[in-house]
């Protein structure tokens, strides 16, 4: 890949992390439990985003991030008070910031109609204070140039000399803004010697000095002695040092704070001038560090540099000098990076990869402190993981078969073979769990989109909502996660739009104006449970009932329990919103949510208390590769019915079975009649159904909501089965969802309950081929 592109990708990956951090910080600020460090963290995150954006010339993003950063800066310096309003504005601004990042990544632009108002809102917060166009412009002009240079590997004279001239010019007028030194002020001597890493991280000494100028009156002297002749100048090397005499009331800590972002990447000395002891020239300080660095890195760097120089200046005289001069040597990493990035020029790019990395990753660590400790990860093709999972599935079956055969052979349980098999079984289980864990991912990736959604819906509906999330670390199979987003999104919208009252309504009901929606994930009984709970008005049962009657879903005199009424909202064609709002009334109802949950082998239930709120509970399998099934016998065949479709099982009494028309049987279960389907007949395994009163009826519910009773001879029990595709080597069969392999090594078919419940299926004639073969 183009090295520039890959660095850019890294930047965007880190942007995601930074944005997540910033959002957490902002949420904490909104919740009112933010301390100075939280604000600092958000500031640093936004700053890092801006810095990286500068490197890639993402103008829109820079401009927005800059204003954002300025607000954060005012907050942390205490110039602005953190009010609820500010926090809310910032959260909305954050959404736009995230949009800007996304737009920069995917191309395209953020809707100005969204971006501009929030931008001016933030500017209004800052007032004219601290942010004018000059400031912004100046920032862009020289704030990020060095980074651009570093990456593109431009040649020599690019270390922009204008900075030399501009820097004093830029801060002097600002210094004037500052009132005259107040009594009690001290004079500090500050030695500031940036290393090239500082520039590589898109920091700019001019800005730092300008910031310093805000503290008081200062006198800056530039030490440009280290600047080599032009032909020996390395564009990415920091040659300039400054000595500042600052008259200020501020203490050392305050001064140090100015250097917060660059402290690790420069040599900084801060001493009271009255202490007489003249500070050592910064360059001598540098030597220690740099010497150490040089001894370690020099040979490789020189190789890289040589390779680079070879292309343009055949003379080698210039090269040894940096070796002797420890200071530039420390900076040659950058050259090594360039050599690496420009492989054609420097085929000898022996520059070690680990070295390139810190620079590629430079932007975010500039924030300092907030370093994200990465867990070591590798990227693996999903196919490979799936193959591994398959192989392990086979191992499990093979192991089960072997155990069964050993048992049947009559070996004693205490025999070595049997004991060894037990160990093997434990080991197999462990391998299976570990392999499944590879595909497992925390639900965080879904959850983290929700706060934003909640804010947007709340804005649109004029409601106030606080989203509380728990259990984001709960892990579930990747395929399940991917298909969780839509149902959760929809339910959250519903909860805010329909569940919560508006602030006035809440206050009238004696509740706090701000509604609370809780989104929670947890593991329970080998499944993942996701709960969404609101403290709103609860389900309006009379209204739900009224609508259901109106839509013809129930008859007017139907007697329904509260629970049954609540569940009506899952019926297709039911939508409680009186006015179809564009938030939750997009033609997708809760029936779609339920169908997608059931499609994942899950179930969704609701409990609601009028005036107190509703709670939706989804229970899903941890993986789609295994299925909880009920093993049944029908027409002497062993079949598996998905447990998620089963409501209950019962022994039908002959007097409960009735016939409608010719052959269609129905069974009375309590007060309702449901079709009774003989599985053996439905699948064509036998001609005539079991006589009434025999066998076991399994009451199932299809994804479409239709109920039916499946008549089988016997239930063998429940077990978890590994799903095997029939299509891989054969084709789809009507009425059969997939196959699995049972402990005895035999293949068992998994019933497709939906297909069985649909009446057309039962009326379908036998396949043509069979007739022809028979005839």
């Amino acid at each position: 890949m183009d090295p520039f592109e890959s660095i850019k990708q890294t930047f965007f990956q880190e942007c995601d992390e930074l944005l997540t951090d910033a959002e957490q910080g902002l949420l904490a600020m909104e919740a009112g439990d933010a301390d100075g460090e939280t604000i600092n963290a958000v500031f640093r995150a936004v700053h890092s985003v801006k810095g990286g954006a500068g490197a890639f010339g993402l103008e829109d993003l820079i401009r927005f991030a800059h204003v954002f950063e300025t607000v954060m800066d005012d907050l942390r310096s205490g110039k602005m008070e953190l009010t609820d309003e500010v926090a809310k504005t910032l959260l909305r601004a954050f959404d736009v910031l995230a949009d800007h990042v996304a737009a920069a990544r995917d191309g395209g632009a953020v809707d100005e109609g969204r971006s501009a108002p929030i931008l001016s809102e933030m500017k209004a917060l800052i007032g004219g204070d601290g942010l004018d166009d000059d400031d912004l412009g100046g920032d862009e002009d020289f704030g990020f140039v060095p980074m651009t240079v570093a990456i593109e590997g431009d040649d020599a004279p690019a270390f922009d000399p204008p900075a030399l001239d501009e820097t004093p010019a830029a801060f002097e007028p600002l210094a004037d803004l500052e009132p005259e030194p107040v009594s009690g002020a001290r004079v500090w001597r500050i030695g500031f010697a940036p290393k090239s890493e500082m520039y590589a991280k898109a920091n700019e000494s001019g800005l730092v000095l300008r910031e310093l100028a805000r503290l008081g009156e200062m006198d800056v002297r530039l030490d440009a002695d280290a600047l080599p002749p032009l032909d020996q100048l390395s564009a990415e090397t920091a040659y300039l040092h400054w000595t500042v005499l600052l008259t200020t009331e501020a203490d050392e800590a305050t001064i140090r704070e100015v250097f917060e972002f660059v402290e690790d990447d420069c040599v900084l000395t801060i001493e009271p001038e009255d202490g007489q002891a003249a500070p050592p020239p910064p360059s001598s300080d540098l030597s220690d560090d740099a010497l150490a660095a040089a001894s370690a890195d020099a040979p490789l760097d020189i190789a890289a540099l040589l390779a680079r120089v070879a292309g343009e200046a055949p003379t080698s005289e210039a090269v040894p000098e940096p070796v002797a001069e420890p200071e530039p040597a420390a900076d040659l990493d950058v050259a090594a990076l360039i050599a690496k990035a420009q492989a054609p020029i420097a085929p000898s790019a022996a520059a070690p990869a680990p070295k390139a990395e810190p620079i590629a990753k430079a932007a975010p660590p500039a924030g300092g402190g907030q370093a994200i400790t990465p867990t070591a990860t590798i990227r693996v093709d999903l196919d490979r993981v799936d193959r591994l999972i398959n192989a392990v599935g086979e191992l499990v079956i093979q192991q089960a078969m072997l155990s069964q055969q050993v048992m049947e052979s009559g070996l004693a349980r205490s025999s070595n073979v049997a004991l060894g098999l037990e160990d093997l079984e434990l080991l197999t289980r462990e391998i299976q769990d570990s392999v499944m864990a590879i595909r497992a991912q925390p639900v965080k990736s879904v959850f983290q989109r929700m706060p934003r959604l909640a804010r947007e819906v709340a804005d649109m509906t004029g409601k106030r909502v606080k989203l509380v999330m728990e259990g984001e670390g709960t892990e579930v199979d990747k395929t399940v996660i991917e298909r969780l987003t839509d149902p959760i999104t929809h339910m959250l919208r519903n909860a805010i739009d329909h569940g919560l009252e508006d602030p006035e309504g809440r206050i009238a009901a004696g509740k706090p104006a701000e509604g609370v929606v809780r989104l929670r994930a947890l593991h329970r009984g080998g499944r993942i449970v996701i709960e969404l709970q609101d403290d709103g008005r609860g389900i309006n049962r009379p209204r739900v009932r009224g609508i259901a009657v109106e839509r013809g879903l129930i008859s007017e005199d139907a007697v329904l329990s509260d629970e049954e009424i609540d569940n009506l909202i899952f019926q297709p064609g039911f939508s409680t919103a009186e006015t179809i709002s564009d938030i939750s009334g997009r033609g997708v109802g809760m029936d779609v949510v339920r169908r997608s949950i059931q499609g994942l082998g899950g179930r969704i239930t609701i409990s609601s208390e009028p005036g107190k709120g509703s709670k939706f509970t989804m229970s899903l399998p941890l993986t789609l590769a295994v299925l909880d099934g009920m093993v049944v016998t029908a027409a002497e065949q062993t079949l598996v019915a998905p447990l998620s479709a089963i409501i209950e099982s019962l022994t039908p009494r002959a007097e409960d079975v009735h016939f409608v028309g010719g052959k269609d049987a129905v069974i009375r279960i309590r007060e309702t009649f449901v079709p009774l389907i003989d599985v053996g007949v439905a699948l064509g395994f036998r001609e005539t159904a079991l006589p009434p009163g025999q066998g076991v009826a399994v009451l199932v519910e299809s994804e479409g909501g239709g109920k039916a009773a499946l008549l089988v001879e016997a239930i063998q029990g429940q077990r978890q089965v590994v799903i095997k595709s029939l299509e891989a080597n054969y084709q789809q069969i009507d009425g059969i969802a997939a196959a699995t392999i049972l402990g005895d090594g035999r293949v068992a078919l998994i019933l497709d309950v939906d297909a069985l419940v649909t009446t057309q299926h039962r009326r379908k004639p036998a396949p043509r081929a069979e007739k022809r073969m028979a005839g």
Partner: protein
Amino acid sequence: MSMIDTLSHTAGARRELIAFRIGDQEFCVDIMQVREIRGWTACTPLPRTPSYMKGVINLRGAVLPIVDLGARLGLATTEPTARHVIMVVSVGGRTLGLLVEAVSDIINMSDDMVQPTPDVACDQVKTFVKGLFAIDGRMVSLISLDRVLPETEAEAA
């Protein structure tokens, strides 16, 4: 690609075939298509399939459909016993099992030994038998497996 095409393109080339018996007839397929040969194990029948589909078995974790090749070729339906064998073959990216009576021989032959199938009335013969040849006084039919599974038949129809 059907076997007869391969044959016509490389006339005279040597190839190895696996011969097997169904009833009193002998058939063969290209050895390269055969993955393994295993003893008969009970199948799980599949619903709503033609009668020549015996069902599926577990082949080391994969679900393998089993075709009663005799029935498929229009001979009598096979009542499998422990002496019957399943030839695991791969056809068009799929793996399936063919129920046959016994594997009889490995034949080394050249393509020019193959005679075209005589014009006979039976559709199934036309569909599957791609040629005949005589070896040691026996007649062996070379068959193509491309259309053994029902859905390929449906596609062709």
